Structure formats: C-alpha cells, structure tokens
C-alpha cells in the first residue's frame, strides 16, 4: 500500500526537480513578503521584534497558498489524475503521497529558510527554534488542508481566487496557534500549549484530510 504512496511522491519530486521554478517561486515570495513589512512599518527594532512572528507566519501561509493551485492542476491537464483515480491503490493513500511531495517541495524549504528571515527581525535564538518547530507542524497542516481545497477546485476556471476563499478561513486556527506560540516564546512565556495543539492538529489532519481529498478528487473528476 505504501509503495503507491512512495511512487506518487517520488514522481512529483522528480517533476519538481526538473522544474525548479515551482519550488523557488513560493520561497522567493515568502522572502519578499517578509522584506515588505519592515519597509512599510519602519525599521525600529522594537516594532520588528513585536511583529516578527506574525509577519513570518502570515507570509508562510500565503506562500503555501500560492503553491497549492499547482498541486493537482498539471495532473488534471495531462490526464495522469484519471490514472490515479482508476488505479487499484486506495486513493486516500495516493492523495497523501501527493500532499507529502507538496510539503517537501513547498513547506520544508520555508521552514529551513525561516531562521534567516527571523534573524532580520531580531528574533531571540530560543524563539527561532520554536518558530521552526511551529512552521514545521503548521506547514504540514496547511498542505493537508490545502490539498482538500485544491482537490475541490481542480478544473475550475476561477480556481485560484476560489481556493484562497475556501482555505483561508480553515487555515486561521493554524495561523493563530503558530504565530502566537512564537510570540509567547519570544516574550519568554510558557508556550507549550500551542505546540501540543499544533501537533494534535497535524496528527488529526494526517489521519482525516486524505479521505476528504480523495472524496473531493472523485467528485471533481466525475
């Protein structure tokens, strides 16, 4: 059963390797949004320390959203999505494989470069670790939630704007938990609750979201 998952994930990673733009664009977007804020609100260190966790988290959320509409689109266009639907492998597992590849391509790089951007916001060292941990868990949640939205909107004309409208309200708890946990850590307060809650969300999303994605894919491709 996991052979199917790995095969799907490996194929998507190979495709991303051949088209590095897909990986780099959300990353540049993330870095650029983080650059915009100090330019807009001014370079004073107190303000940057205060707004840093929120800005980094919102930027990460938007960057993930940006990369989501390509999740099933090219597969839908060249017909390989139909092959996934008729394959004997269970569809939720294949959907999980695609989401895993999406996270490795768009989520993990964000986690890895986030300390660099956090440094420019003068975030303390301890909080940086918490930022990476919350982004690690949070991007998993966002990829999984996003895969439901991407599956619902695949093949629609106004897909991108609609996808944001569907996913953003669902993603709000993740943003809220993630950004505030980092704020707490930056202020030397107790932050464990947020990490546990995000972890619980991630576990719940891994177990439930693939079924919703699979159901949505079947509906979209009737």
């Amino acid at each position, binding site marked *: 059963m996991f052979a199917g998952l790995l095969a799907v994930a490996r194929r998507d990673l190979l495709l991303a390797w051949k088209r590095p733009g897909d990986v780099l664009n959300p990353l540049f977007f993330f870095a650029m949004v983080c650059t915009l804020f100090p330019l807009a609100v001014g370079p004073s260190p107190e303000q940057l320390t205060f707004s840093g966790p929120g800005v980094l988290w919102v930027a990460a959320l938007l960057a993930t959203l940006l990369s989501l509409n390509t999740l099933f689109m090219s597969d839908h266009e060249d017909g390989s999505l139909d092959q996934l639907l008729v394959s004997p492998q269970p569809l939720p597992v294949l959907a999980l494989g695609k989401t895993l590849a999406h996270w490795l391509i768009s989520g993990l790089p964000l986690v890895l470069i986030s300390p660099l951007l956090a440094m420019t916001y003068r975030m303390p060292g301890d909080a940086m670790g918490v930022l990476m941990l919350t982004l690690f868990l949070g991007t998993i949640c966002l990829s999984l939630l996003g895969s439901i939205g991407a599956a619902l909107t695949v093949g629609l004309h106004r897909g991108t704007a609609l996808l944001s409208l*569907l996913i953003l309200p669902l993603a709000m708890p993740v943003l809220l938990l993630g950004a*505030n946990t980092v704020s707490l850590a930056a202020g030397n307060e107790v932050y464990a609750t947020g990490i546990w*809650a995000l972890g619980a969300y991630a576990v719940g999303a891994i177990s439930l979201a693939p079924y919703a994605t699979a159901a949505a894919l079947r509906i979209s491709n009737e």
Partner: protein
Amino acid sequence: MWKFFHQMASPPHFYRIAKVLIPWFAVPGLMLIAYGTYAGLFVASPDYQQGDAFRIIYIHVPAAYLSMMAYMIMAVGGGIGLIWRLKLAHAVGAAAAPLGATFTFLALVTGSIWGRPMWGTWWEWGDPRLTSELILLFLYFGYMALRSSIDDTAKADKASSVLALVGVVNVVIVHYSVVWWSSLHQGQTLFKKGGPAMDADMLYPLLAMILGFTFLFGAMLARRLRTEVLYRERRTRWVRDLVMSPEGGL
C-alpha cells in the same frame, strides 16, 4: 416510518407539504417575535449596568444562535446527501447557506453596535465570539462561492457538502483556538462564567425571540426550498404539469 421519509424526499410531495407548512411556521414565528419585541423593548426593566443598551440581545442572541444552527443544518444535509444520495438533502444545504450567512451578518452587526457603548469601540478583536463569528461568515462565503462556480448541480452539491463537513470539524477548532488566543490578549472578560441570573421579565422575551426566530427561519427555509426544488426539477414532468395547471403552479 421509512415510508414517511421516502415520501418527504420525493420532490413533488415535498413541494406540496412545504406549502402547507409555511404558514404553520410563519404565523407562530411572527406572533412570538411581536410579543418578544414588545416585551423586550417596553416591559423588561433596564439592566443595572448596561441600561437600555442590553436590549439588543433580543436580536443578537437569536441571530447568533441561528447562524450556527444553519451551518449545522447545511453540514448534516450535506452528509445525508453524500451518504444516502438524497437530492432533497443537498437542496436543503443550498437553501440554508444564504440564510445562515444573513444571520451571521446580523449577529456581527448587532454585536458591533452593542460593543460601541460597552467597549467604546465598534470592533474588539479580543472578544473570541466576535472573531469566530467572523470566521464563520467567511466559511459561508466560501461555501456559496464554491457552489456558484460549479455549473453542474450534482457536482456542486457533492463538492460543497464535502466543504461543509470539513468546515464543521473546523468550526470547533476555530472556536477553541480563538478562546485560547483571546485569553492571551485580554486581562479580564466581560462575561463572567455562569453570569448573573436573568430576571424573568428579561428572560421570557428572549426565549420568545429565540423560538420566534427559529420558526421564522423554518418558514424562510421552506420557502427557499420550494423555489430550489422547482428550479432543480425544472425539466421534469410534474413541474410542467404544475406550471400548465389552471392555478399557474402556485
């Protein structure tokens, strides 16, 4: 028992039944609202802290309650539609969504008007209920946008039902995360746990308003459902017969 459900699920039968039911919902609903409005505005004594400003709860509380009720109806209807493939259940979701969004909007507006004298601001991010109600409004918008952007009705039904079910799981998480979040930002809450006991002359009008709004919601839902059923069945024989009949289909 099962025969009753099958009959109700048949569109022509439902169309006839709903017509009979609407006045049974609308008349008690309007009567209760008339009583509640009168008693709430003129009979109930002013609150010792909030003065007359508290009277907005007679609109606010029923609207807030129905905003969540309508979402549950939408999600349960979607679930029934997906599992048992009842077309009528999907129509319930389609008919309930704009009503739910309207009540959510009403709850937000009245909450904000109430907040002006109480908090000194039209909008208070620190209040968890206001924030989760706003997110609920966005969830309604997403549901309606998805529905309207898929042309094929059967496909739109199923896709939006999946979204409603995903949303209903999330609404709970949204609520608790917002409560956790606002407890970080706000020192004291305006509403004490349990709250001060309400006087009978304040409470009865409120109960009447809640019940009256629910009845009125039922009437409006039935009214919208009739239109929805008629539109969905527009190519069938019974609709054609109905339209061609001497009464003109009404």
